[in-house]
């Protein structure tokens, strides 16, 4: 029997497994702050709440450092804490702005609508022709229009470009749930986006060419 048999799990051939210290925690957290803030911003729909949520998540994470195993996925662990903070402290029951009806989530909505509006004419890249007309604020308003369960999956997917499995781990739900919510959420997002684009007059039917100013 070797003395190695009593070494902690994960300690073989390296430093002993230990609790991450505050300096290492801050170093691991810093590169994630941009994604954390963007995630919190889309989930809370508020810059002030997003900032508070990220700070609170950082403190909660620091206090819970003993539950994190160094060498495992720090990002998934931290974002799970962040999502919990947002839902427990910053959930808003009152909704404002454009909303999207769940029952209507057609396939290829932007493709069809932009084609019908004449935006595919004379270009071999109709998607860019469309999206160049849709600014960042319109996209933010569209994701804000999604119901919570779709918005959280879509936000983690878009902001972090993660595999479905990792999103599932962050949310503590089965991967099939992530897949179905994300696929449907994408269609809902396209629908909300087109409506906002229409409301703002940035993706309506092409001008009829009379040359007159509106």
């Amino acid at each position, binding site marked *: 029997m070797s003395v190695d048999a009593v070494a902690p799990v994960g300690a073989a051939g390296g430093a002993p497994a230990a609790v991450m210290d505050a300096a290492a925690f801050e170093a691991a*957290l810093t590169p994630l*702050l941009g994604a954390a803030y963007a995630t919190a911003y889309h989930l809370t729909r508020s810059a002030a709440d997003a900032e508070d949520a990220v700070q609170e998540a950082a403190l909660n994470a620091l206090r819970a450092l003993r539950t994190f195993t160094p060498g495992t996925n720090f990002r998934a662990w931290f974002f799970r804490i962040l999502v919990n903070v947002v839902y427990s402290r910053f959930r808003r029951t009152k909704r404002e702005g454009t909303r999207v009806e769940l029952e209507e989530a057609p396939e290829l909505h932007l493709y069809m609508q932009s084609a019908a509006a004449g935006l595919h004419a004379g270009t071999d890249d109709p998607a860019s022709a469309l999206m160049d007309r*849709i600014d960042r604020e319109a*996209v933010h308003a569209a994701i804000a229009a999604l119901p919570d369960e779709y918005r959280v999956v879509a936000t983690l997917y878009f902001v972090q470009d993660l595999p479905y499995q990792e999103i599932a781990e962050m949310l503590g739900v089965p991967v099939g749930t992530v*897949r179905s919510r994300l696929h449907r959420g994408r269609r809902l997002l396209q629908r909300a986006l087109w409506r906002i684009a229409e409301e703002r007059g940035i993706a309506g039917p092409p001008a009829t060419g009379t040359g007159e100013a509106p």
Partner: protein
Amino acid sequence: MTRLTCEEAFARLDDFLDRELDAAEMRLVQEHLDACAACAGEFRFEATVLGDLRAKLTRIDVPRTLLAKISARIAAVERAERDGH
């Protein structure tokens, strides 16, 4: 090897764009897109929209003071723990 119909390829659109299919299925969809200009155009449209949405959703100005505030709070927790022990 069986070829996918347009409908079968379209049913895999999201998973294909997200690289969530296994290698054999990815290849089947790609073979369909290589042979079908209509589906290729739709897939390209969706991929471009997704990329644009990702860029616009990610580009958010993080408050400049956020990191400093977090650092200060981490330091405060550390101080409190030290003093308390």
